[in-house]
């Protein structure tokens, strides 16, 4: 049954794609607000999963996840307030280097707090051996949660930026910081909010995939690289494009294992990214105006 065989690859692709997209959206929100790439983005996903796995022993699972998202969002705001606003004021390059330093700091702090061991979250529905069948393909019910969370993030962000005053103010701030400031919008508050949102989104993504992929203190760096790849692949600053690019990359990685050993799937992804960026440096859906505006 070759159709079931081909369909089977769709589900891992969906899982990879969703997490890449969520991390890429986090990159984009901060990029739009500040013009920087926040290389500590992957660490937020790590923090989300680790905090939730710790709290899951004490609280009901949904509450543990909600608390993990809230705590990580708060740490995102704190990171911006404490480090980026004071230390790295003035200079995009300085801020980017600061985020790289921060990612190492958060990683080492997590190593001290949680140790080196691998943690998992309980499956949101069912357990390790639960499986759903669909047209001959089998997959964990957790896939629904992963895809659902990504859909929720995209829908929530779209509504937020389109219909709420704060969302509009954030967009205004990213279009013209000085102009927005003159209209009475506080850009510092918007930047702090961007960090909080992007940390919260990262944490949610980290929680929903944790039952499937497991989590430990060092997963952040790989996620940040993949997320950045996807953000650049779709076009920096464009969150809708990040979802399409994320899913495309996830599917590509999954289906490439039919022909190429699993160990080389990262190489496949990077090669495609290079080709896209040579052919269209602004990414699949990016415009020249939006790309690397501060560099």
């Amino acid at each position, binding site marked *: 049954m070759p159709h079931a065989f081909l369909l*089977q690859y769709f589900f891992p692709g969906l899982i990879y794609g969703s997490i890449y997209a969520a991390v890429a959206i986090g990159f984009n929100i901060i990029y739009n607000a500040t013009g920087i790439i926040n290389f500590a983005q992957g660490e937020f996903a790590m923090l989300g999963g680790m905090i939730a796995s710790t709290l899951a022993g004490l609280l009901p699972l949904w509450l543990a996840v909600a608390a993990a998202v809230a705590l990580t969002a708060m740490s995102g705001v704190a990171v911006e307030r404490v480090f980026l606003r004071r230390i790295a004021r003035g200079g995009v390059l300085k801020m980017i280097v600061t985020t790289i330093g921060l990612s190492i700091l958060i990683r080492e702090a997590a190593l001290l707090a949680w140790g080196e061991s691998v943690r998992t979250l309980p499956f949101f529905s069912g357990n390790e051996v639960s499986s759903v069948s669909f047209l001959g393909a089998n997959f964990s019910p957790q896939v629904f949660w992963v895809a659902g969370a990504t859909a929720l993030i995209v829908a929530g962000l779209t509504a937020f930026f389109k219909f709420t005053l704060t969302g509009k103010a954030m967009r205004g701030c990213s279009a013209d910081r000085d102009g927005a400031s003159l209209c009475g919008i506080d850009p510092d508050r918007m930047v702090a909010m961007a960090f909080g949102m992007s940390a919260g989104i990262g944490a949610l993504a980290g929680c929903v995939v944790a039952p499937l992929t*497991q989590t430990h203190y060092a997963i952040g760096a790989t996620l940040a690289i993949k997320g950045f790849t996807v953000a650049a692949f779709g076009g920096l600053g464009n969150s809708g494009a990040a979802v399409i690019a994320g899913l495309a990359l996830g599917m590509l990685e999954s289906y490439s294992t039919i022909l190429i050993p699993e160990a080389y799937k990262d190489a496949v992804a990077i090669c495609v990214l290079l080709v896209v960026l040579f052919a269209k440096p602004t990414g699949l859906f990016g415009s020249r105006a939006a790309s690397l505006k501060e560099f």
Partner: protein
Amino acid sequence: MRTGTVAKIAALCALGLSFISSSYAADTIKIGAIFGITGPAAYLGAPEDKTARMVVDDINKSGGILGRQVQLIVKDSGASAEKAISFAKQLVDEENVVAIIGPTTSGESMAIKDICQSAGVPLISCASAETITTPVAKYVFKVPPKDNYIAEWIYRTMNAMGISKIGVIAANTGFGNGGKAQLEKYASKYGITIAVSEVYDADATDLTALLTKVNAAGVQAVVNWSIEPAQSIVAKNMAQLKMKAQLFQSHGFANIKYVEAAGEAADGIIFPCSRLVVASELPDSNPQKKLLMKYNADYKALYNEDASTFGGHAYDALTILKAAIESAKSTDADKIAAALEGIKGFSGTAGVFNFSAADHNGLAMDSVVMVTVKKGKFTLYQGK
């Protein structure tokens, strides 16, 4: 240019430090240890580190070796071969250690084999690849069972179960590739056909895509050979794919934490390893039983977690080194190496060691037993 300057300053500092420390170090025995305490091999390296500290404390409390106190210098390589190399050089050139135990992984062990061999510092590796001690190098020994034993035990069990067509998946590391090569080498001897044989990234977090390919080949069993958290993921993914094939793991699975991470999916996994994890099930006549029970109890009392075969490797490496130094009555490298080759009938956690000039591992095929997981616990595999 700049790194050159830094290196010179570092060398000067080291020189200064060695003057300071040499006066007090004169009557201690310095033993170096390189373990992957953090990073992907943490479930191996962390128990090795904890065990080594425990054993050295015990040795020092009971009078040391040759009446001298032991100073253990532990380095965390994070399972990186590059770091293992620089730590090995540091231990050899700056700390002037008597011997090195570890590294944790096969890749690291192969990377520092030549350093120890050319510096004439005995190395007792805690990794399992056969190539570490084959061909034999004068100063290089190892204490875990060879990976060819593991491969042959898996195949023997398959023969008994009537399994003939299998898929092999392995982490793309020294350990994974070593095991995969042994499985491929011995397959025909046991009449096994390997339908798919593939490596995956050591950091892999999902293997459903790879397992889909393996499943499509219609295999009766899957052998996974790795030490990374991927071991638990393979078990979960196979359950989610509703695969009927029997899952075999390598001896890299012998830490109960992998079972905890895989949850219910771990039940029924079969893997070969030494008797440590099933010590309580052994008959009292077994020569290792007393030692294994004591080590398990001491470790649990001190660290409040179950012992693993990996911690056992550090235990074996240190106790064997102690025996060799005592029988050599010297810390001279050549005399220690000769004494190591003379160790016979030594009961360790991994089995009974009989070293010789031709065998720097000293373990026989019967040091390995088949173990399975039942309701989240390791138990001896009794056949179907």
